[in-house]
């Protein structure tokens, strides 16, 4: 039985084997040839893609510029302000110079007695000397508190005199006094005093503010009085905390104070715009108890036009001079400074003429005079630790302007071969490329542009935008000159296959962009720039290209 089964299975297998051979031979189909490395045969796919919505406002620009000359007013209006602080030094106005006085006295005259005193008798000496502090007769010092002052008083007596010698200056508080003891042999004395923290109430004489040096002594002498007594008064390194009096009529000047206004063209293009309003203000700030007269003159607005430096003189009310008075500060703790301002504007000057286009430099001469009214009875000058008169020169302009075809040219890197990875086949894959730019303009400017692609030498390869294509239009403005609603414009930048091939073959390297910007209705109207004004750009693409071979 088993043999029978095996025999039949064997027979089946043989039959099956031949069947399989026949089937396999008959099942062999034609060879299949596939060539995937044939880019020209590959499909062309297309795509549309929204890419970027770029939003830019004036506020963004301010943040990026980080220029403290630009600010936004309460109404949102952008404003430009540039200023320069000027310090007019008045350290000589109430400066107390070093005081050096020397006196010499004959002892016989000092102790002269008639009849002649007996041997080992005593004699009294009493001397008062005035020490004048003002060097200018018209100046008067009433009172001063000293921050510093080194006073040295020296006395030298002839030998043979003995006894106490007392010096004092009653005008100085706390009282400055000292007693020396002469022994007859060692009769030279010197004493240093510091005036720091002391107050001096000057005595007044004719053209003189002085202190009194008192010398009192009761001397014994063993012989007939002879010889001399020498007294030196040396005061140096004087510095007052506060000084009262009358400091006279003096002058201090600054010639050719230069204010440079940088980066006006690069950052703002302001040099190319005409501004509606500009003001130039002279602020003064007086911490001294002295009235002043300020005279700013010869105010020149300089700029470079077409490579030539040009200077124009600012005239105010017909003259090239600004005059203003500054009151004295009010004494107190602290001292209340006095200030004053003078604003130059279009109605009192030719500032619009000299400031359009905007200057790159303002140069000014400043002369200040103290006590222009002279010595006014019952008034006092004072001067504390600030001995300078401060002024600030400020030019300010709201960004309210008009611009007629402000033109600029920019070069943008566009190394097309690098973009294509140096492979012409990559460029060949691109069939078409279109970039759609949808502008939503809330700026009161219109813009037109030319754009072309150039090689490394700047030679034009292909125009992209020509005839100053309109990019931005201006929407409707309200009475404030503010754009109420963004104006939409759209621009399509498109390239076809032949152009793309041209870019590669001719080694496109740069995009050259020329723009002309004009403010709205620039013949007659000025526009204002508010911080919320700006520009939105939506960029989208449509492209088609051949699938690369893998």
């Amino acid at each position, binding site marked *: 039985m088993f043999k029978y089964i095996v025999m*039949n299975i064997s027979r089946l297998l043989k039959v099956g084997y031949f069947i399989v051979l026949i089937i396999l031979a008959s099942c062999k*189909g034609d060879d299949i040839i*596939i060539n995937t490395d044939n880019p020209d045969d*590959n499909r062309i796919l*297309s795509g549309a893609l929204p890419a970027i919505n770029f939003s830019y*406002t004036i506020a*963004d620009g301010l943040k990026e510029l980080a220029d403290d000359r630009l600010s936004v007013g309460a109404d949102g209006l952008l404003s430009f302000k540039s200023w320069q602080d000027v310090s007019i030094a008045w350290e000589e106005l109430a400066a107390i110079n070093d005081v050096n006085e020397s006196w010499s006295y004959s002892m016989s005259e000092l102790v002269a007695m008639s009849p002649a005193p007996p041997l080992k008798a005593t004699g009294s000496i009493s001397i008062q000397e005035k020490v004048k502090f003002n060097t200018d007769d018209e100046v008067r010092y009433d009172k001063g508190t000293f921050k510093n002052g080194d006073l040295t008083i020296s006395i030298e007596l002839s030998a043979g005199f003995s006894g106490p010698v007392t010096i004092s200056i009653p005008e100085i508080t706390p009282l400055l006094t000292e007693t020396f003891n002469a022994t007859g042999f060692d009769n030279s004395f010197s004493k240093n005093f510091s005036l720091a923290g002391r107050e001096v109430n000057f005595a007044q004489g004719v053209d003189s503010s002085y202190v009194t040096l008192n010398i009192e002594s009761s001397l014994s002498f063993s012989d007939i009085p002879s010889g001399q007594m020498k007294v030196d008064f040396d005061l140096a390194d004087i510095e007052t905390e506060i000084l009262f009096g009358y400091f006279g009529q003096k002058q201090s000047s600054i010639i050719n104070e230069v204010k440079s206004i940088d980066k006006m063209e690069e950052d703002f293009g302001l040099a190319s715009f005409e501004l509606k309003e500009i003001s130039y203000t002279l602020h003064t700030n007086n911490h001294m108890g002295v009235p002043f007269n300020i005279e700013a003159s010869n105010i020149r607005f300089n700029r470079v036009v077409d490579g030539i430096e040009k200077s124009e003189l600012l005239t105010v009310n017909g003259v090239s001079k600004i005059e203003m008075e500054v009151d004295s500060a009010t004494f107190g703790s602290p001292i209340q400074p006095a200030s004053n301002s003078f604003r130059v504007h279009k109605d009192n000057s030719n500032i619009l003429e000299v400031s359009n286009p905007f200057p790159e430099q303002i140069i000014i001469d400043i002369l200040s005079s103290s006590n222009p009214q002279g010595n006014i009875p019952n008034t006092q000058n004072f001067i504390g630790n600030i001995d300078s008169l401060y002024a600030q020169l400020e030019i300010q302009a709201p960004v309210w302007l008009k611009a007629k075809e402000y033109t600029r040219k920019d070069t943008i890197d566009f190394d097309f071969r690098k973009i294509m990875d140096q492979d012409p086949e990559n460029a060949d894959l691109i069939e078409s490329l279109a970039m759609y730019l949808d502008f939503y303009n809330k700026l009161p400017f219109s813009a037109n542009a030319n754009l072309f692609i150039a090689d490394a030498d700047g030679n034009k390869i292909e125009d992209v935008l020509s005839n100053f294509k309109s990019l931005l239009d201006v929407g409707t403005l309200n009475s404030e000159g503010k754009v109420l609603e963004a104006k939409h414009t759209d621009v399509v930048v498109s390239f076809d296959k032949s152009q793309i091939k041209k870019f590669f073959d001719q080694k496109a390297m740069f995009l050259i962009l020329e723009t002309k910007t004009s403010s709205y209705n620039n013949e007659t109207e000025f526009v204002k720039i508010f911080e919320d004004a700006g520009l939105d750009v939506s960029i*989208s693409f*449509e492209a088609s290209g051949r699938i690369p071979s893998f």
Partner: protein
Amino acid sequence: MQKFIYFFLFVFLLAFGTLIRAQDPMGLYYMETIPQSSFINPAMQPRANGFVALPSVNQNFKSDIAFKNVFQDVGSEWVSPLSKRYDFSKLKRATGKSIDFQESLDLGLFGLGFRSGRDYISINFGVKNVLQTGIPYDFISIADKGFPSGSVFDFSTLRLKGYSYKELALGYSREWNEKLTLGVKVKPLFGMVAGMTDINSFKLKTSRQVWDVTVSGSISSSAPIEVVEAEDSTDFPESVEFKDMDSDDWQGYFGSFDNMGVAFDLGGVYQFTPRWTFSAALVNLGYINWTKDLNTISFNGNYEFDGLYVNGSDEDMGDAAMDALEEDLKTIIDYDVSHKKFNTGLTPEFYAGALYEFTPSITMGVLARSMFQKHNFRQDFNFSANVQPYSFVSINLNYSVRPSGGNGLGTALSLLLGPLQIYAMADYIPTRYSTVNMDGDEFTMFPYTRNLSVKVGLNLIFGRHGYRDRPMLARNM
């Protein structure tokens, strides 16, 4: 190099796209000497008085597309979808809205059956693994046109469904009379692990100004996955990660009897005349109710991409724009994480067949198989000849046809070595092969093959001479 990419892509798709249920080869249907024929029609009573089913393996690959669909014959050569000569409409005719790739692997572990009078009772236990993917045709169509303005892409047919489960099949078949035999199988199911997508809507509209994505659906799993919700519960989850489990944990996981389900097979055989027999079966009517380790991430929303938003005040514009886009994707679509039970239905199949008996050992049959899937309906026809030249051997030769699909030969062979039965069968056996020369590299390919179903196994057969009172010899009519 390309040939390997294409070849492995093809094999990968063929192998790992899968069907929700392993289909037995259609050649098995009329192989009454193999007890597993009752797997297709529970009314079928094997020609054996009793059997013990030993381990078997059933592997089924099924694809909507063949090599000849991926590459098209344009006359002198074949072209890939990259070529402008490639006709995507032909691909569309082959795939419909979705390109389905299906695969399943059944492991029959144990079974037995016996006849009792007119009744035949069987029990089988096995593990079934199912994976099914659907790739929207519109996704493929991107390679046709790209993303031109005004396009509408419908990706709603995107799906991924996979699960493993244990099946206990209790079968009962009874000869109601001389002509009619009816059968039923009740199949308790025990799910092990599952994951599935349920996309209600997934559409993309493109234009130069905006890309509009509408999406609605859910992804559900019953698996050791941990989902950490975002702070805002409507945002995309913070993390989705597998739990850290060791081998014992996995053993316990797969050995559990959670995730219960049930399925029914119904069948009938009617002997119209002594030579004509008609049969029909509806199988796999059932579902699995997943209750363990559940996570469902639902999503619903509409996202309009009209470009990156770059603000002039941002110092690092590009990064800020990309961060904003990522945040949008996380937040604009509404997400919801839940842990609700969900069901996965099996894929019902309907079989209808007719058998003509020339002799008791030679029969000819025709069989129609319909398969009902979401977004997909598949119909197969099979013509077979069944021969039992000796009592210990039976052979089936068949030919399957799928309208708008493939066709192919099939066969089945059963050998009895004493009580030991060895059987093997296959459907849609590739009938043509070709040498492919791709860019100079050659390899062999079956260009028309979309499907391959193979089943092998062992049985112990008792009472192999079959029917109670039907002789095995040719009837003397």
